[in-house]
């Protein structure tokens, strides 16, 4: 069992992986110059969870702006979920966005196009 806790900065999101609950939450902007320094540890956490635990894994995202480097890293995470889903694992993504900014929904939608697992995009109230 291991928790993942990364505090947010101006250019990186807050990331919390709750091993017990099987929830990985990320919120905020993501535009670090080198996103792989940040996301490698997130990718490793997801790989370890899917490898060691039979339980479902849920991603809860409130991400806003992602630079292309973060988009590439996020795609790697969704690819892991897709692979697990194809092996019969229960995985899901819920992406919440502010209805005043449709760009976030469009971004989430482009990810969803390439995924066959449960992927919900919905608005939240401030």
């Amino acid at each position: 069992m291991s928790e993942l806790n990364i505090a947010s900065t101006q250019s990186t999101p807050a990331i919390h992986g709750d091993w017990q609950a099987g929830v990985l939450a990320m919120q905020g902007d993501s535009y670090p110059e080198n996103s792989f320094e940040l996301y490698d540890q997130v990718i490793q956490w997801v790989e370890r969870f899917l490898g060691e635990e039979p339980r479902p894994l849920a991603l809860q995202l409130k991400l806003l702006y992602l630079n292309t480097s973060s988009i590439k890293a996020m795609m790697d995470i969704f690819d892991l979920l897709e692979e697990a889903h194809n092996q019969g694992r229960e995985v899901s993504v819920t992406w919440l966005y502010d209805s005043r900014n449709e760009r976030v929904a469009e971004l989430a939608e482009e990810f969803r196009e390439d995924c066959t697992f449960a992927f919900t995009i919905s608005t939240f109230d401030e």
Partner: protein
Amino acid sequence: MESLDLLAMREIYNRQRVMLCFNGPISRSLIEEIGNALRNYLQAEQAKPSAAMDVFAVYIEMTQNIRHYATQKGFSDQDASATVAISRDDEGRYVVSAGNLVTEQDGRELVDFVARLSTLDKAQLKIAYKEQLRKPREDGASSGAGLGLLDIARKSSSPMRTSLQEQKDGRFFFSLSAVI
């Protein structure tokens, strides 16, 4: 020594409707700080959140491309200089422009790549973008300039413009401009 003519600079900025500009060595933290100022300006101008995000995104991709290029070429922090401006055009659309010194070959490749992008419509750009996204990342490279340029092209309301001008030291100044 020629004295600094701030009034002339001011008049140029006003005429070209420049909101924000920067010239000099650009660091990671400076990109963030200028980005913050840009977001505040856009908010003060009551830009729609989606438009503000597009302008911010294009600014980030352009400046990070310049930083990645400098890293790849082994430039010192002092040499990792950029000229960046965010302005409005006659129709009030936001224009993001950035320039930096490149080798002649890199400059020509960039000009050609942007010219090829200008022949693609939005649907073709999306396909090219997704293909680029799927390409395995090279060791040591955080991301290719190609993905950033494709992203900018997708957010632009007209084709990006480039220029390439030879400098006295044999290097070339490449500039890129996108209308959001």
